[in-house]
């Protein structure tokens, strides 16, 4: 049933994409739109085929940076959320700092990461981590606090320790929130890696996009954007599949 629904959803999405591509193709041909303004989808597809190896290599680099940033950012966020859920004073201390991180314009400070961490992978991972931090922090915090108070009291009457309550009640209660945060954060991590690659990188899809924009080479630019979108969709699908497997008992798994 689930597999059939997934295939149906995929089919509908592909038909919609094909329809949009067809309209753009007709429009660009009918009005002879120059490729430096809007390349025809067929030109983008041809370029993607020609440069498939390049896009795969650079996409792999961006994906690895995003994945590392995601693990780092969400790991730190979950740890801090745990501390905040455990202690009101710490919540009041840390939450404003988290808001500060959230409100920091990443594009503006991205060059600083190159100064701090050099030209390698580290600044891209750090930016991806930073951008994923807040959504996971909020989701983790709300999730950990969402445990039913009566259930907490019940476990306490049974003599459960704080650690046991955390492990057997709070974390399971937080799982829907954690998956929701992961869905948001994964795609943000990709954007963070791309932003990092705009400032002092010689590899990655962000670099491809940056150079293509400088050269007005929009076929490879859109090709890179589509590869990035495909990675994002695949990552979201993976999280969705994991969510359905882990939360098979939860109503949210049925709804997604």
């Amino acid at each position, binding site marked *: 049933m689930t597999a059939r629904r997934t295939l149906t959803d995929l089919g509908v999405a592909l038909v919609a994409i094909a329809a949009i591509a067809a309209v753009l193709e007709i429009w660009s041909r009918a009005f002879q739109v*120059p*490729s*430096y*303004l809007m390349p025809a989808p067929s030109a983008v597809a041809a370029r993607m085929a020609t440069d498939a190896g390049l896009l795969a290599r650079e996409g792999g680099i961006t994906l690895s940076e995003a994945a590392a940033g995601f693990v780092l950012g969400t790991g730190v966020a979950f740890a801090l959320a745990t501390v905040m859920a455990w202690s009101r004073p710490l919540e009041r201390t840390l939450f404003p700092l988290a808001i500060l991180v959230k409100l920091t314009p990443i594009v503006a400070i991205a*060059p600083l990461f*190159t*100064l701090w961490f*050099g*030209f390698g992978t580290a600044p891209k991972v750090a930016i991806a981590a930073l951008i994923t931090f807040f959504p996971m922090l909020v989701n983790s915090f709300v999730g950990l606090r969402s445990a039913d108070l009566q259930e907490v009291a019940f476990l306490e009457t049974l003599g459960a320790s704080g650690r046991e309550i955390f492990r057997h009640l709070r974390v399971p209660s937080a799982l829907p929130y954690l998956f929701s945060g992961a869905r948001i954060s994964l795609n943000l991590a990709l954007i963070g890696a791309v932003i990092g690659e*705009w*400032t*002092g*990188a*010689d590899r990655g899809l962000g*670099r491809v996009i*940056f*150079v293509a*924009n*400088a*050269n*007005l*080479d929009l076929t490879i630019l859109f090709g890179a954007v589509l590869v990035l979108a495909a990675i994002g969709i695949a990552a979201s699908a993976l999280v969705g599949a994991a969510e359905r497997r882990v939360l098979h008992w939860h109503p949210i798994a049925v709804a997604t």
Partner: protein
Amino acid sequence: MRALAFLAAVVLAACNAPAAAPSLTPLPIEKVTFIAGFKPQADLPFVAVYMAQEKGYFRDQSLEVDIQHATSGEHIQLLATNRAQFSTGSAGDVMKRVASAGVPLVSIAQIGQRDEQSFAVRADSPIRTLKDWEGRLVGYKTTVSADYLALVSIGGIDRAKVREVAVGFDPRVLADGRVDVYPVFTANEPDTLARLGIPVRLFDPTTFGVPGLGLTLMTNQEMVQTKPDVVTRFLRASLRGLADAIADRDAAVEVVMKYATGEDRAHHRYMLDTEIDAAQNDLTRANGIGAMDRTRYVALRDFLLQYGGLTKTVDVDAVFTDRFLKDLYKDGRLVWR
């Protein structure tokens, strides 16, 4: 004696001022947009337009000019689609856009007469010659440039011994010691670094014989073909503004600061001085500021082709025209009408 000095000043001013010609019947007002290729600053083509606007020269030419600034390269597309009618870009960039993407751009005045980029090392660096780049970390801004490859060839550098890294547009990586050689825009980044306490020495490609050219004022093919009179009037007013800026740099910086609000005045003065210096050579002394020489465009094109700056050749007559300048100057003096 004072009267003599006054007389001398009047004579000098008369020599530098644009020659006046009889006024014609006022034309209907034409609205055009100038989009500068970067944020507000004392880039000389920007200054020319700022000054012309400030002094009412555009109005005198029956033009209503909307001045905008680009930050992400969007000025090229806006110019190509005639959403903007005038902009700026280096002569090499114009060639690349026309050659690689067929963008209908045309340079109409060559303001910067030399390469706008150099390579900087810290003043206390042991790097003294091009050959010293071997074993060092050398930055490039977007892609490895033709200038760099030319210097590698000229200096006999074994490129395999150079570590090349994309550094973007933040000169602090040189200040921070993360690279040994950093590509700079000569007009502003050396001053930015000096203000960070890092004086630099420059390897200027021009001094090594690289035939680079700097910023141009440019328009699109549609304007050249359908509204040449508007192009002429825009250029006339801009070049008069530029002449005023050269004659009174303090006043020019005052005008720049109206656009670059909150920025460092001294930095813009440095930039203006550097760009004025780069805008003048024997060619401009004979033919006026902005003068264009076909042989230099051919040399630039051939150089870019040789070092990978162009992937295919381009007809230089399609990327620049001096027909408007020829209408504007007489004996090297701007004719104002």
